[in-house]
């Protein structure tokens, strides 16, 4: 990732209210995420995988989508994305605590495996990249019904090594399907650096293998991310087919709560990345410069977010776990739930 100081894009089309909402969502995601690490270290939740450093990519792209209308296939880092799509902090925490009420899986899946038919968020699994052909299929159905819904699918750059990435993009390209392929490139796949994942500098270069546009945008420039996504979505909606949109991000945490990144990642690398690409601070700076955010507003926001995080945590902690017998439910549609 280049370490040049970024110049934030101007966004005349985004009114201040939107900019503030975007900031709020990024902040909410960050604080929820931080809380989950705390709960993990307290032994209260068994696993965390983070969005920290990816919030700009996620909220920026989400802003070009219509929650509940466009289809979204997120991956495990997409906490800020699903919040922007109107999942609630309580819903998130219910997943983290693996409660029966968890809307994504009823406590069956690891945290961050989001799903919601209501929000058109497609249930995802743990094996990476399988969802990429799904996105093409979801879009195929929309196209067949002449709906104008767009499908957006998210994944890390490491996952573009999988055959399913290739097969999914190729199918979507041949059929000119309304899909946006969003790659959150943090330059690491667990401990594997970009240079061992691929012999190219930019994932966007892979677009040309399918005859589709490939674009790279800096994930800490939220407005630019939004603009790039808006264009890709417009292309999809106008029948011009898919786009591969690469958003450069930084993974601020270890891969997950089971990892310790300093066993393989130089501390300085992270520091440099952080200075230049930390999206939350960068966006706050931008909003201050634009006169949209000031200290009192920020304090107010922090307080509101803290209350929401507290509420969600308390709610989920008290909620009931799935009943043991429920493990037999939903293997097939016709099997009656046991309770």
């Amino acid at each position, binding site marked *: 990732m280049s370490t040049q100081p970024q110049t934030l894009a101007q966004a005349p089309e985004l009114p201040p209210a939107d900019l503030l909402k975007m900031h709020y969502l990024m902040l909410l995601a960050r604080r929820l995420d931080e809380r989950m690490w705390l709960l993990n270290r307290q032994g209260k939740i068994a696993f965390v995988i983070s969005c920290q450093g990816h919030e700009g990519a996620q909220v920026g792209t989400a802003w070009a989508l219509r929650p509940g209308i466009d289809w979204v296939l997120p991956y495990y880092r997409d906490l800020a994305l699903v919040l922007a799509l109107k999942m609630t902090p309580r819903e998130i925490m219910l997943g983290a605590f693996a409660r029966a009420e968890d809307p994504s899986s009823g406590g069956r899946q690891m945290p961050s495996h989001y799903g919601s038919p209501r929000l058109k968020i497609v249930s995802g699994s743990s094996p990476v990249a399988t969802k990429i052909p799904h996105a093409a*299929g979801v879009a195929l159905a929309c196209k067949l019904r002449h709906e104008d819904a767009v499908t957006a699918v998210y994944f890390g750059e490491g996952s573009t090594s999988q055959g399913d990435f290739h097969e999914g993009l190729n199918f979507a390209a041949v059929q000119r399907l309304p899909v946006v392929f969003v790659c959150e490139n943090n330059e690491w796949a667990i401990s594997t650096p970009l240079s061992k994942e691929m012999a190219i500098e930019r994932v966007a270069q892979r677009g040309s293998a399918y005859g589709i546009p490939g674009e790279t945008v800096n994930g800490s420039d939220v407005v630019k991310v939004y603009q790039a996504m808006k264009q890709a979505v417009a292309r999809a909606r106008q029948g011009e087919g898919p786009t591969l949109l690469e958003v450069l991000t930084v993974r601020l945490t270890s891969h997950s709560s089971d990892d310790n990144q300093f066993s393989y990642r130089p501390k300085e690398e992270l520091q440099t990345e952080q200075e230049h690409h930390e999206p939350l601070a960068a966006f706050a700076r931008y909003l201050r410069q634009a006169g949209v955010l000031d200290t009192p507003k920020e304090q107010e926001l922090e307080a509101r977010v803290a209350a929401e995080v507290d509420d969600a945590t308390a709610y989920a902690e008290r909620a009931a776990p799935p009943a043991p017998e429920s493990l037999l439910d939903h293997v097939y549609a016709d099997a009656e739930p046991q309770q």
Partner: protein
Amino acid sequence: MAQNNVLEAVREALFEEMERDGTVVLLGEDVGARGGVFRATEGLQARFGPERVIDTPLAESGIVGVAIGAALNGLRPVAEVQFADFILPAMNQLISEAAKMRYRSNGAFGCPLTVRTPYGGGVHGALYHSQSIEALFCHIPGLMVVAPSTPYDAKGLLKAAIRDPDPVLFLEHKRTYRLIKGEVPEGDYVLPIGKAKVKREGTDLCVITYGLMVHYSLEAAEALAREGVSVEVLDLRTLLPLDKEAVLAASKKTGKVLIVHEDNLTGGLGGEVAALIAQDGFESLDAPVMRLAGPDVPAMGFAKTLEDAYLLSPEKIAAALRKLAAY
């Protein structure tokens, strides 16, 4: 009633379901103008257009993956895998995704997908166009596996598969495509998934089998009848979920069971059937539960000598039945 072969029955089921339900779409390699390499989809693209009969790139994981996505979003896709041997690149999509979609989403998302594929040998298909792959899927909760042996069953069960809200792997034995003819009612009928069928009543022994081996077993039973031995033949038709009642009933009635499949022995479906009987039908057994199956080699060879040596035949089945009768 019309006399059709299995291929025609499959095509008829596809045609009628596409007529009936605009959400049914086909996708696979060469399913369009070519009508599939076995011509099972012949004429369908001409009738329903390239939007509903989609020639895909050569990529099975992609085909199944796209079909899963379409199934999540209101379509009823029928994906064709050109030969069952080539379903292996799609295992991850089938097992991690299709089979687990409903379960992992706690019932929120369903996956009404049908995957059709021709399997089995006897058509000089050699190592990679002859394999039986059912055992790999009969271990996967969330999937259903159907393997009809007659045109009648093929049509009724394929319709059931397409209408089912869960993923169904629909196995068509390629040797039966043109070989096996039978009466097929015109128009709509649906057969229930999960029900075996007694193809021949008998009292001394029973054969439990499916696919092409049903026909070979019926021939063998006929031979034994001429020798005064009465053999029941049970066609499983659905391999997952197994029709346990039917299996146990046949075993109880005859006390002597021979399980037959073309697939190689070890780890094949026969093990599951035998285990079921050895646990729940033990008390009525008069003899060991016998299995007759393909040898434990990677697949059948191209040379006719090797193919014949691999494959079961009515004679081999009859010989095993005689041995069991003599126990």
